């Protein structure tokens, strides 16, 4: 603070020139800097607002003063206060003729207003005028403002001028015009869709800066639609080559790297174009290899390019040589002391591991170091990597680690994410049900309220259904262990609501099943839960239902039921509850206690949550009765609609229709409940009984019991699919799971493999940890990576099943690419020896495009490349290669040969060299526009 003051004083005395501020502003900033509390700061700012309001109203404020006021307004708003009273003055200032004032006006306006603000309309006109200005600085200011102030509706007002500026003589203006067009494209792609060819054209601008700017919109366009830009692959490659060969002017160097930002953008674009495209991957592999050799890994920016290469290599079709280079680069990153580089290394590892799973092995210890690093960012990145490389052999270690970390952090956003990842991994790779339940308990305990409710339902179903194999013994053991763990946990304070619901349900269903615990013990615990969480109605509801089940099982087995006093008082309390749901449950429980064993057994059979319940919607069992009634003179059945109005209680399914009797007044709002029923049955992959629960429980006792069954009936509809936690399609946390089933060819068989191995394989092939006494890290490493090293061969098939299953979850579309790659090593990539390389370099798209540009100017200034094309070379449209470049090269004889030699594989060095010379000659040839890009070539 002291230092600040002295500097402030110096400033006040000395540097007043140019951007000079008044004493007033200086004092304001200083006093805010010294404010000790937010309240004090607010007070200062509020008084400043008062001052400014008064000052702005004064007549004839000198412009210089006004400029300062506006800056002060901006400052106020940056501190979080409303400065809208002064917006209009900022707008006025944009009209000023003085450039500095105008810029200040534009600056304030872009900071204050959003594109839909009413005042924008006052600015559009000024912008239009400024875009036409002779002073390119004014034009730049206007272009800058456009990026923030123009919305979909106002784009047409300025679009023609911006397009015109693409040909402005100043490269700074061209650059900004391209960026502005890019911005328009982002805001409303349709408004500029007819202008996209301009981006292609500007790619061959004489100024490398303009070309670099063009890469930004092209990157966006290509990521939207890769296939329309495949023809540009060789152009991008050759630009990248030229950049790396330092053919750009020295002024583009940054820290002795040639135009690194352009290189990075190009690599990003190449990654998009090369993904899944053998031809494109081959073309770019050469230059990628060069980059690895040339990159200076001692500078930050050099590493940025290296990382981008790794990224690119992980996207294109695998090439063994490049992968090796990438792996080397990664190990350099990981060995570095810089956390930033380690971070990039871990990220790169996560990308490469998809292609060559073995690569992680050699970096085991580095990865574990990162996992234990105090740097949170690095830790999270490492967890992401672990998540990607999880398989059944290391799932236990990884998930344990994740849970430990989950417990240690407070950031709810990330907690949710890591919890859902734990659940996903546990569902996919769990070695045993016991373990799965343990993990789930931990997740619920520590992140319960952040977990998706479906996870809870899955857990309940798993406990109910058990292994799915016909091993009742194992199932009951599983349940017992669940019950035991829950009884231990239940007394912990402050459990999440969702977890308590699971606990209550399991205790109700299986608490007394083994006879280990008495009914009174369990019911006592359940009453405790209902007491302790008395504000949570859902938990209470679950607890009461659980009590009902416990008592029902007792009655059914013929034992005498002693209702605990606390339980009795709970029932009484709930009988008077404000919640109709709880009231209802209490009444049901009370009624049930009075029934005899036989009746109770039919109402709540033991362990029947998984039983199929057939609901006879036709009510055919009543046929005899109806027949009788009709015979004895009753009215026959008339129409369903009408009948619905009368027999409210029998058909619970049409409950929703009941509320809309045909003759009653109908308002639109009544329709709302309807849609809530069908989507549940049809779209939900894992049906959740919960939502329907409340509406059903408004029914009288008889139907509500049925409704409980009904909910389990929904559950059991899935049974036919035989889903278990071991299978990716089951997991419900990601929406991608539904696509798993839709994914074509092979995916289904893979996921089958996943099921087979997840339940049986882990136990057979899971390696016991080595007995030798290693340092702890090594042990951890072994458990994380060991699976892949020692028993890789026999695991390959099954673990690839896992991998693919996991891949499906992440991004289903890439599966077909990823799986075949290791099997067929691309032979052609290695063929790229010297001769081919020279052929590629002869294809100099810059020059070819330039040739076009020249002819286009002769052609009477037609701006449309494509149009120009069909004029000069009508044959082009018939050529099979639908590419701008190839068409272009058709127009000049020499080039067309080059193109052919590139497509036909056998490279002829001599011919290629000849053509190279020819093309170069043409490129640098006569016209006035001598591209700086190729200056070096001439010399």
């Amino acid at each position, binding site marked *: 603070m002291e*230092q*600040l003051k002295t*500097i*402030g004083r110096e400033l006040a005395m000395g540097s007043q020139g140019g*951007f000079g*501020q008044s004493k007033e*502003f*200086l004092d304001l*900033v200083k006093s*805010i800097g010294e404010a000790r509390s937010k309240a004090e700061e607010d007070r200062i700012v509020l008084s400043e607002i008062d001052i400014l309001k008064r000052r702005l109203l004064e007549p004839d404020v000198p412009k210089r003063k006004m400029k300062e006021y506006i*800056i002060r307004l*901006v*400052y106020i708003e*940056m*501190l*979080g*206060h409303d400065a809208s009273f002064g917006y209009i003055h900022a707008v006025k200032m944009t009209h000023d003729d003085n*450039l*500095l004032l105008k*810029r200040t006006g534009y600056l304030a306006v872009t900071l204050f*207003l*959003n594109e839909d603000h009413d005042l924008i309309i006052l600015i559009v006109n000024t912008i239009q005028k400024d875009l036409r200005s002779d002073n390119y*600085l004014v034009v730049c200011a206007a272009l*800058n403002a456009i*990026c923030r102030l123009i919305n979909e509706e106002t784009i047409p007002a300025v679009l023609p001028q911006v397009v015109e500026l693409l040909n402005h003589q100043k490269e700074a203006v061209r*650059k*900004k015009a391209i*960026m502005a067009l*890019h*911005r328009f494209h982002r805001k409303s792609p349709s408004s500029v869709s007819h202008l996209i060819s301009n981006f292609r054209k500007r790619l061959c601008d004489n100024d490398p*800066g303009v070309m670099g700017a063009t890469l*930004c919109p092209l*990157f966006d366009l290509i*990521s939207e639609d890769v296939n329309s830009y495949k023809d540009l692959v060789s152009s991008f490659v050759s630009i990248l080559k030229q950049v790396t060969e330092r053919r750009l002017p020295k*002024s583009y160097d*940054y*820290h002795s790297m040639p135009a*690194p*930002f352009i290189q*990075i953008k190009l690599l990003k674009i190449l990654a998009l174009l090369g993904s899944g495209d053998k031809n494109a991957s081959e073309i770019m592999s050469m230059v990628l290899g060069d980059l690895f050799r040339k990159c200076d890994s001692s500078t*930050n*920016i050099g*590493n*940025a390019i290296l990382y981008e290469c790794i990224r690119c290599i992980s996207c294109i079709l695998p090439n063994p040589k490049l992968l090796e280079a990438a792996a080397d680069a990664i190990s350099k990153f990981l060995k570095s002391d*810089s*956390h*930033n580089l*380690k*971070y*990039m290394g871990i990220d790169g590892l996560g990308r490469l591991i998809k292609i060559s799973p073995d690569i992680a092995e050699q970096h085991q210890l580095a990865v574990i170091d990162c996992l234990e*690093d*105090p*740097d*949170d*960012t690095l830790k*999270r*990145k490492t967890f992401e990597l672990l998540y990607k490389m999880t398989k059944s052999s290391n799932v236990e270690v990884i998930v344990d680690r994740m849970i430990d970390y989950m417990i240690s952090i407070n*950031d*709810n*956003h990330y907690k949710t994410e890591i919890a859902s990842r734990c659940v996903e991994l546990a569902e996919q790779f769990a070695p045993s049900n016991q373990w799965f339940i343990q993990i789930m308990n931990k997740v619920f305990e520590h992140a319960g309220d952040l977990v998706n409710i479906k996870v809870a339902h899955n857990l309940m179903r798993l406990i109910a259904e058990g292994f799915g194999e016909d091993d009742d013994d194992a199932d009951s053991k599983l349940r017992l262990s669940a019950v035991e763990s829950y009884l231990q946990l239940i007394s912990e304070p402050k459990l999440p609501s969702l977890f308590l619901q699971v606990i209550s349900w399991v205790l109700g269903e299986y608490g007394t099943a083994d006879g280990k615990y008495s009914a009174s013990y369990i019911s006592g615990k359940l009453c405790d839960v209902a007491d302790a969480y008395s504000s949570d109605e859902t938990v209470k509801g679950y607890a009461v239902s659980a009590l009902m089940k416990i008592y029902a099982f007792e009655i059914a087995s013929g034992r005498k039921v002693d209702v605990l006093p606390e339980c009795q008082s709970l029932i009484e309390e709930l009988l008077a509850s404000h919640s109709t749901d709880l009231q209802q449950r209490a009444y049901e429980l009370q009624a049930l206690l009075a029934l005899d064993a036989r009746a109770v057994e039919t109402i709540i059979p033991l362990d029947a949550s998984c039983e199929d319940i057939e609901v006879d919607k036709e009510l055919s069992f009543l046929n005899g009765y109806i027949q009788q009634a009709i015979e004895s003179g009753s009215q026959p059945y008339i129409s369903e609609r009408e009948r619905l109005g009368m027999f409210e209680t029998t058909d619970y399914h049409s409950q929703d229709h009941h509320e809309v009797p045909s003759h009653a007044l109908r308002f639109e709002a009544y329709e709302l409940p309807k849609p809530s029923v069908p989507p549940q049955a049809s779209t939900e992959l894992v049906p959740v009984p919960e939502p329907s629960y409340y509406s059903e429980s408004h029914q009288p006792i008889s139907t509500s019991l049925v409704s409980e069954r009904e909910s389990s009936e929904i559950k059991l509809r899935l049974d036919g699919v035989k889903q278990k936690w071991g299978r990716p399609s089951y997991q419900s946390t990601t929406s991608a799971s539904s696509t798993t089933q839709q994914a074509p060819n092979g995916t289904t068989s893979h996921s089958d493999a996943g099921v087979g191995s997840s339940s049986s394989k882990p136990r057979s092939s899971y390696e016991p940890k080595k007995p030798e006494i290693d340092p702890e890290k090594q042990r951890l490493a072994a458990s994380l990576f060991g699976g892949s090293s020692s028993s890789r061969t026999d695991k390959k098939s099954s673990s690839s099943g896992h991998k693919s299953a996991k891949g499906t979850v992440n991004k289903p579309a890439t599966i077909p690419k990823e799986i075949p790659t290791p099997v067929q090593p691309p032979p052609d990539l290695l063929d790229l020896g010297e001769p081919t390389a020279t052929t590629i370099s002869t294809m100099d798209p810059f020059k070819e495009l330039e040739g076009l540009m020249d002819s286009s100017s002769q052609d009477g200034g037609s701006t449309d490349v494509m149009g120009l094309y069909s004029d000069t070379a009508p044959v082009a449209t018939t050529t099979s290669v639908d590419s701008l470049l190839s068409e272009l090269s058709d127009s000049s004889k020499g080039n067309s040969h080059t193109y052919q030699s590139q497509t036909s594989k056998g490279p002829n060095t001599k011919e290629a060299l000849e053509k190279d010379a020819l093309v170069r000659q043409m490129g640098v040839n006569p016209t006035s526009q001598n591209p700086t890009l190729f200056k070096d070539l001439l010399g």
Partner: protein
Amino acid sequence: MIKAVMMMNTQGKPRLAKFYDYMPVEKQQELIRGVFSVLSSRPENVSNFLEIDSLFGVDSRLVYKHYATLYFVLVFDGSENELAMLDLIQVLVETLDKCFSNVCELDIVFNYSKMHAVLDEIVFGGQVLETSSAEVMKAVEEISK
């Protein structure tokens, strides 16, 4: 795309904030505070990167650099390279240093419009426009002639 450029001092006072998509004033404040609370809890000698989905939405990263009393912060999405963004901060700081010869916190406060002029030459509409500080200087000098 770059989503935001921020400069704040080590007490959390914003010195410059520019969002490349419109944000209401309250949201800006919330984000600045959020970013500051994350930054101030970071230990020394750790990486300069943060994944900041919780504040800026899916796939948001943040790169920061701590100079004397100031944090320089860039927020961007997956289409940018973290290390390169770190160098972009470097470019910005180098340029400011040339502009104000030994830039300090108060230079930034008192030369608000020049600051923005510099920034606008480096980042334009959320994209990197120029990375040579000499070129940026030239453009800014041209403007203030």
